């Protein structure tokens, strides 16, 4: 499974290099623009989540650290989902997206900081902020971002 970990590692770097184009390093507010994946990447991400859960259900007993691999796979799918375009992508959805990112960033930093502070006095092996919990925290933060994004869009759709 080390090969799987390496593939995920490479995919993450590939995604970051794709979504942050050269203009991202020009520090010019007009030029900085995230390059989002096409809308159909959302379908791939959803399929990936379902596939990962199925694999987990079928083979979790025979795979060591199956929980870790499941969370890792779901996190990757959520990351792709977050950075995929809406069907009608415009400045409004872009603004909600950035607000939802800020929301999840604040949530992630606050929780990591809080649990990190508690972990200082804990034994390294039984630390509350271990590798698995950190992965879960990343996933939950992305879920919060998605929830904020879609609830806002839903509310806007409703109020006519």
């Amino acid at each position, binding site marked *: 499974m080390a090969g799987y970990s390496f593939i995920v590692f490479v995919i993450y770097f590939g995604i970051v290099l794709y979504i942050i184009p050269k203009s991202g390093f020009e520090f010019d507010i007009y030029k900085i623009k995230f390059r989002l994946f096409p809308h159909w990447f959302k379908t791939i991400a959803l399929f990936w989540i379902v596939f990962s859960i199925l694999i987990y259900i079928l083979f979790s007993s025979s795979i060591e650290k199956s929980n870790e691999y499941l969370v890792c796979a779901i996190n990757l799918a959520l990351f792709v989902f977050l950075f995929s375009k*809406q*069907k*009608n992508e*415009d*400045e*409004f*959805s872009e*603004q909600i997206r950035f607000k939802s990112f800020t929301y999840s960033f604040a949530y992630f930093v606050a929780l990591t900081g809080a649990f990190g502070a508690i972990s200082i006095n804990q034994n390294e092996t039984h630390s509350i902020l271990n590798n698995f919990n950190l992965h879960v925290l990343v996933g939950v933060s992305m879920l919060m971002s998605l929830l904020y994004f879609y609830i806002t*869009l839903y509310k*806007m*759709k409703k*109020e*006519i």
Partner: protein
Amino acid sequence: MRNTLKIERAIKNLTQDDLAKLIGVSRQTINSIETGRYVPSTVLALKISEVFEKSINEIFQLDVND
């Protein structure tokens, strides 16, 4: 910020969807602008003013709290 988008739409007999297609945004965006939940960018405001053949100031007005 207040706006007369709904009135302008009614005058031109356009639905939210029609206007959204004309300026290349989603219907939610038009709805959010009309209900005052979203302030459009200058570019989008200019596109809207072009559709209704009116100046931006005629469609969008500053509120007392702005």
